[in-house]
C-alpha cells in the first residue's frame, strides 16, 4: 500500500510542483502573484482537446498547439494588460489576475459547457506497470517523469543559457539589468510565456487523471500556491520541493487518516507554516524603509 501511496503522492506532487514553479517564476520577476495561472492552463488543455476531437489531429500537434497557445496567452496577458496597469499594487495585481481568471473560466464554460469530458491521452490512466515488485499506474509514472524532465530543463535554462541568465538578472535587479543592456520588457513578457507553458504541461498531465471541465485546475492552483508559499514565493527550488512534499503528505493523510478531508490538509499546512514563517519556509521578507 505504501509504495502506491507514495507514487500517487509524487505524481500529484509533480503537478503541484509544476504549478508552484510557474507561479514563482512570474512572482520572482514581476512580483505578480498570477492567480490566473490555473485557468490559463485549463484553457490550453481545452485547446488540445479541441484539436484532438474537433480537428482530429494527432497528439503531438494537439499538445504542441496547446503549448503555443499557452505561451502566447502568457505573453499577451503581460504585455497587453499587466504592463498597462497604472497602479500595480499587490492588491490590484491580485484582483487583476483574478478577474482575468474569472473571464477565462467563463469563456471556457461558455464554449465547452460544464460537462466533464474524457481527455484522450497517449498513456492510459488505468494501466499499471510493475516497478520493483510494486504496481504503479503508468500515468503516475509518466507524470513524474515528464514533470521531472521539464523542471530540470527549466532550471538548466535559467542557469546555463544567456537568456536564462538575463532573466535572473532582471529578477534580482531590473534597473541594473537594463543598464547592462538586458531588454527587461521582453524578458518579463518571456517570463510570463514560459511560466504559462509550464502551467499548460501541468494541465495536460492533470486532464487525463480527472475529467476535463472548466474547474480542472482549481485544486492544482491552490495546491501550487500552497507549495510556493510553503517554500517562499521567491525560491523556485523551495517551491518545487514544497510541491512534492505537499503531494506526498496529502496522499499519506488521505490513505491512512481520512480521505474525506484530504484537501483541507493543504490549507492547514499553509496556515501553520505561514503562522511561524510569514514569508514561507525559505522566503525573505522585505520590510519597507521608513
Amino acid at each position, binding site marked *: 500500500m505504501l509504495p502506491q501511496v507514495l507514487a500517487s503522492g509524487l505524481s500529484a506532487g509533480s503537478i503541484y510542483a509544476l504549478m508552484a514553479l510557474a507561479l514563482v517564476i512570474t*512572482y520572482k520577476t514581476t512580483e505578480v*502573484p498570477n*492567480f490566473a495561472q490555473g485557468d490559463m492552463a485549463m484553457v490550453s488543455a481545452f485547446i488540445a482537446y479541441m484539436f484532438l476531437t474537433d480537428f482530429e489531429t494527432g497528439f503531438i500537434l494537439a499538445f504542441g498547439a496547446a503549448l503555443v497557445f499557452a505561451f502566447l496567452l502568457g505573453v499577451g496577458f503581460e504585455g497587453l*494588460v499587466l504592463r*498597462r*496597469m*497604472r*497602479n500595480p499594487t*499587490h*492588491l*490590484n495585481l*491580485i*484582483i*487583476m489576475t*483574478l*478577474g*482575468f*481568471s*474569472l*473571464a*477565462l*473560466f*467563463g*469563456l*471556457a*464554460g*461558455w*464554449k*465547452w*459547457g*460544464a460537462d466533464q469530458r474524457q481527455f484522450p491521452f497517449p498513456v492510459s490512466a488505468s494501466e499499471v506497470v510493475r516497478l520493483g515488485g510494486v504496481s504503479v499506474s503508468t500515468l503516475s509514472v509518466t507524470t513524474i517523469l515528464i514533470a521531472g524532465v521539464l523542471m530540470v530543463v527549466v532550471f538548466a535554462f535559467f542557469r546555463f543559457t544567456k537568456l536564462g541568465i538575463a532573466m535572473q538578472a532582471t529578477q534580482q535587479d531590473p534597473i541594473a539589468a537594463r543598464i547592462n543592456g538586458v531588454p527587461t520588457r521582453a524578458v518579463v513578457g518571456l517570463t510570463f510565456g514560459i511560466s504559462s507553458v509550464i502551467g499548460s504541461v501541468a494541465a495536460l498531465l492533470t486532464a487525463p487523471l480527472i475529467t476535463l471541465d*472548466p474547474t480542472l485546475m*482549481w485544486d492544482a492552483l*491552490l495546491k501550487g*500556491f*500552497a507549495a510556493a*508559499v510553503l517554500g517562499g*514565493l521567491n525560491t523556485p527550488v523551495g517551491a518545487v520541493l514544497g510541491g512534492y512534499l505537499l503531494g506526498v503528505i496529502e496522499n499519506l493523510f488521505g490513505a491512512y487518516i481520512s480521505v*474525506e*478531508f484530504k*484537501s*483541507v490538509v*493543504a*490549507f*492547514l499546512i*499553509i*496556515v501553520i507554516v*505561514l*503562522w511561524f514563517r*510569514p*514569508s*514561507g519556509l525559505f522566503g525573505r521578507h522585505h520590510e*519597507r524603509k*521608513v
Partner: protein
Amino acid sequence: MAVFVIVGLGMNVLVGDTGQISLGHAGFLAIGAYTTVLLMTRLGMPFPFALPIAGCVSALFGFLLGLPALRLAGPYLAIATLGFGLAITQIIARSALFGGHMGLVVPDATLGPFSLSGDVSKYYLIVGVAVVLALGVRNLSVTRVGRAFRAIRDNEIAAATMGVDVAYYKTLSFAVSAALTGVAGGLLALMTGFISPGVFTFTLSLMFLAMVVFGGLGSIPGAILGSIVMGYLNLEMDAFQELPVLGRALEDFSERFMSTVGLPNFGWVVTGMLIVFTILLEPQGLYGLWIRALKAIKRSKSADANSSLPGPGAN
C-alpha cells in the same frame, strides 16, 4: 440582491477601508446561513434571534481568520483566505450535521406576529436590514474606528506610531466584515429556502471581490452600486437569452462559436472583464467615474465663468 449589498458592505469594510484582502468570504456567508438554519431547526430558535447570533458566530470566525492575517500580507494573505473559504465549504459538504451535499431546507420564519413566508415580506425584511446596516457602516466610517481602518490601509506604520493598535483594528475589521456577511448568509437562507454547499463557491467569493472593486474600493455608495450591478448579473445568468436586444445576439453567437448550454457562463466573462477593465482604466471603480464626472462638470462651469483665464488647479 439586497443580500449581496450587505455582503458588499462587509467586503468594503475589510478590503476597501482597511486594505486587506479576502478570497474566502463565501465561507462567512455559509457560516451565517448554516448557523441560522441549524439554530432554527435544532434549537427551535425563532429567526429574529437566530440571525443576530449567526452574525456573531460569523464574527468570531472572522476574528479567527484575522489572527493569521496580522502576520500575512499580499498574496500570502490572499491564499490563506482562499484556503479558509474552501475549507469551510469542504467541511460542510462532508459532514452529516450540515446535511452534507444534500443541503438543508430552511424552515418557515416569523418575525414576531408577522409571518415571513411570502416573498414580499422577505423582501421588505432584507431591504430593511440592508438599510439599517448601511447606516451603521456609514456611521462607523466617519468616526474614530473607520478612520483607524483607513489609516491602516494607507500607512500601517504611521498609524501605529499615532497610537492605533493595528492588531486590534485589523482583527476588528475582519470580525465586522464577517458579521455583515454572516447576516447576509442568514437572510440568503431565508430568501432561497434551501442551502447547500454548492452555493458557497470560490467563484462566489470572487464575485464578492468584484462587487466592491467595480463599485469603488472604500466608497460605501460605490459598494452598494457595485453589489447591485454584479448581483443582478449573477442572478440573471440563466436568462441571458431573454435580454431585449442582446439576448438574441448572444444566442446566435453562442450557437455559432460557443455552446448554447454554456451561455450562463457569459456572466462570469462579463464579471471578469469588468474587474480587468476597472483596474486598468478606473481603479476607483464606479465611484471614481462619479468623481471624474463631478470634476468635469465643475470645470465646465468655471470655464463658463472665466473663459479667458485658465483655472489655477485645473488638470
